[in-house]
């Protein structure tokens, strides 16, 4: 396993490799930060050009893009309440309130630290488990995915701020919205009201861009002034402090990274799930659950650590099994195959240098991104002090053009604006957005794994309860709220 490490280390010190990696990281940062674009788009655009490159350089380029894009996405999530990529959605909930409070740099520092540490955690697990991976992937079937997703959905209800009823309604509506379109398990086309556009369901990225970016854009444009409301002088300081705070919340960091890695390992559960589940679990297990949603550092850490650790988990499945856990991994696989490297258990024995190349590249690009974040935080934070009419015009143009580019479907642009109005209405009405988003992301997966489990077990509901992992998930789901309740009681009655 470790024999390729030296060789990979030698290649990384070569100037052209470092340059490629740096180039990849810059592309990853930019594509991550612009809503609508994303690392996947960058990777598939560059794929044909790398055809003639040698395999090691190509892998460095793509690991650079992959490593940096999630931090790039958190920049816009924190500064503008706009998740640059869907995996940064949960970062908005606390990162943006921090920026509004004038702590943008601190939030960026938190994110930079959490990204790097989360990525390292995921890779550590990768290195430890890569030889013994297969049983875990096989053990995680549809019933287990179902319980994991239900776990995420149930925690939502308990974390939503304000009225429980409003949270339940938003969660329910989110799930129902995710069911629109072609339902594969039954072959039915549901709830499209005759529209052809809705066949593939409501698209994820326009959903996020509309609800977050445009919803908030309407709000701050109407209010005028700048995004940072108070403490404007402090807003450019505190990045380093943010990085160090990751160690203060080490428990939260480790827990979120573990969740991220686990979600990454399971094939068929998308990356946009990891940050949301980690976030809801962080709220539940925090000593101060009420601070979430108002700018809690733990919220940023939970989301971003899960985000970057999930790549380690997904790589684990991809490398040891040849089964891509996500679209990004599927692309990476095709790069491997294109260069004559076949993934699967043999890879570790035959070509360890590839794995180390990939891992080194991934770590270095994460470090590049985080160092960049640290150095640039004070300048990036200036965005929160720019008069909003500039921001409003630029973000409307860039976000809508970016959304269009992704699917080249002009109706996506109209959908974004309509969802933006809904997003603003929800803020104005004081209705929580978080449960709607979680319901939307997890709903379809929940129904699919539910129906598949039933089918596989000939319609019997016992299929949901005949594995150890299912029971562990069910018991955790019941135990977490109980423990939270007990802990809050013990802290309030000394």
């Amino acid at each position, binding site marked *: 396993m470790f024999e390729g490490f030296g060789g990979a280390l030698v290649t990384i010190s070569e100037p052209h490799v470092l340059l490629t990696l740096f180039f990849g990281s810059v592309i990853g940062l930019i594509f991550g930060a612009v809503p609508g674009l994303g690392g*996947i*788009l960058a*990777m*598939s*655009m560059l*794929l*044909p*050009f790398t*055809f003639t490159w040698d395999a090691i350089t190509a892998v460095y380029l793509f690991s650079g893009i992959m490593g940096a894009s999630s931090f790039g996405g958190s920049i816009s999530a924190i500064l503008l309440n706009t998740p640059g990529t869907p995996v940064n959605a949960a970062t908005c909930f606390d990162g943006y309130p921090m920026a509004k409070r004038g702590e943008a740099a601190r939030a960026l520092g938190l994110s930079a630290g959490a990204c790097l540490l989360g990525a390292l955690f995921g890779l550590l697990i990768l290195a430890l488990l890569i030889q013994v991976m297969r049983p875990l*992937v*096989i053990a995680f*079937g*549809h019933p287990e995915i179902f319980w994991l997703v239900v776990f995420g959905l149930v925690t939502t209800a308990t974390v939503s701020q304000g009225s429980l009823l409003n949270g339940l309604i938003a969660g329910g509506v989110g799930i129902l919205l995710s069911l629109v379109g*072609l339902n*594969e*398990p*039954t*072959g039915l086309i549901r709830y499209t009201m005759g529209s*052809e*556009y809705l*066949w*593939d369901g409501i698209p994820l990225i326009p959903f996020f861009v509309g609800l977050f970016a445009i919803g908030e854009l309407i709000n701050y444009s109407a209010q005028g002034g700048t995004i940072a409301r108070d403490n404007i002088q402090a807003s450019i300081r505190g990045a380093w402090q943010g990085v160090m705070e990751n160690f203060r919340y080490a428990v939260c960091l480790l827990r979120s990274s573990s969740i991220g890695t686990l979600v990454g390992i399971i*094939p*068929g559960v998308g990356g946009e799930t990891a940050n949301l589940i980690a976030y809801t679990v962080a709220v539940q297990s925090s000593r101060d659950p009420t601070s979430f949603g108002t700018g809690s550092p733990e919220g940023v850490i939970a989301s971003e650590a899960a985000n970057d650790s999930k790549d380690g988990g997904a790589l684990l499945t991809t490398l040891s*099994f*040849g*089964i*891509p856990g996500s*679209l*990004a991994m*599927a*692309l990476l696989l*095709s790069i491997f*195959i*294109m260069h004559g490297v*076949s*993934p*699967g*258990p*043999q890879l570790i024995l035959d070509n360890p240098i590839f794995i180390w190349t990939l891992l080194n590249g991934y770590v270095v690009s994460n470090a590049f991104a985080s160092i960049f974040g640290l150095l640039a935080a004070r300048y990036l934070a200036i965005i929160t002090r720019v008069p909003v009419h500039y921001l409003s015009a630029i973000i409307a143009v860039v976000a809508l053009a970016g959304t269009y580019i*992704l*699917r*080249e*479907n002009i109706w996506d642009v109209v959908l974004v604006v309509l969802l933006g109005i809904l997003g603003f209405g929800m803020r104005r009405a004081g209705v929580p957005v978080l449960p709607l988003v979680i319901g939307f992301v997890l709903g379809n997966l929940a129904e*699919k794994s539910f*129906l*598949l489990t039933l*089918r*596989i077990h000939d319609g019997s509901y016992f299929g949901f309860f005949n594995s150890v992992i299912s029971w562990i998930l069910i018991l955790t789901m019941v135990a977490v709220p109980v423990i939270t309740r007990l802990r809050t009681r013990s802290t309030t009655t000394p």
Partner: protein
Amino acid sequence: MRIPKSLFNAFLVALVALSLALAAAPASAADWKPSKPITILVGFTVGGAMDTAARLQGEVMSKLLGVPVLIRNVPGAGGRNSVTILNRAKPDGYTMAAINLPGQAVNQVARGMRPDLRSFTWIGRQVSNPYFLQATTKEGKDQWTNFKQMKTAKKPIKAGITGTGGNTFPISVITANLVGFPVEFIAGFKGPELITGIIRGDITITNLPLTKRWTTAVQSGEAKAVAVYLPERHPKFPDIPTGVEQGFPALDR
């Protein structure tokens, strides 16, 4: 998924007819010298399998033809946007589309999609990869080793498919009907999940193209291949019998 029997049969006849019609005559364009960029429409998002293949092809095509080849992603409506937009484009050879034929054939036959797929000029197969019928080797599940044995199945055989729009569905329908075994479709797997489903025994058969990941599964004994849809045995897998050998000459591709 249980498909209503009537739809199932009508569908099979039409599908076979359509597939044959489309496979018949590839266009010839030996003397064509393009003078402006060529666009290839892809009905799916950036980064998918079809998109990746089209991008690689575009790169080679532009070198051979000497003009830029642009890839335009027009996802939506399960890939049908590419068909609609191709139909509205000028038939001058500068607009092409990579179409997921089995899925769109299902749309045309079962859902009455317009335009008629036969009205296009078909250039060739984008990806040529033989499909194999896979069976589980998980203990306690039904073990299928050949078509003759599958015909004697008392309960419907659980066949995993991605969905009615994917390639695995028509292949499974045609095989089940020609061989004549009862089948129950379990849909909703993502591509890679089919192989884990087979290993886990969630499904007992599925049809998969030749990929690295099922090769590993077959080599390690976690799955086995019942048949290959080729006229002759695959050179890399001489142990796997063809559908033709097992008495079904129509299953040669």
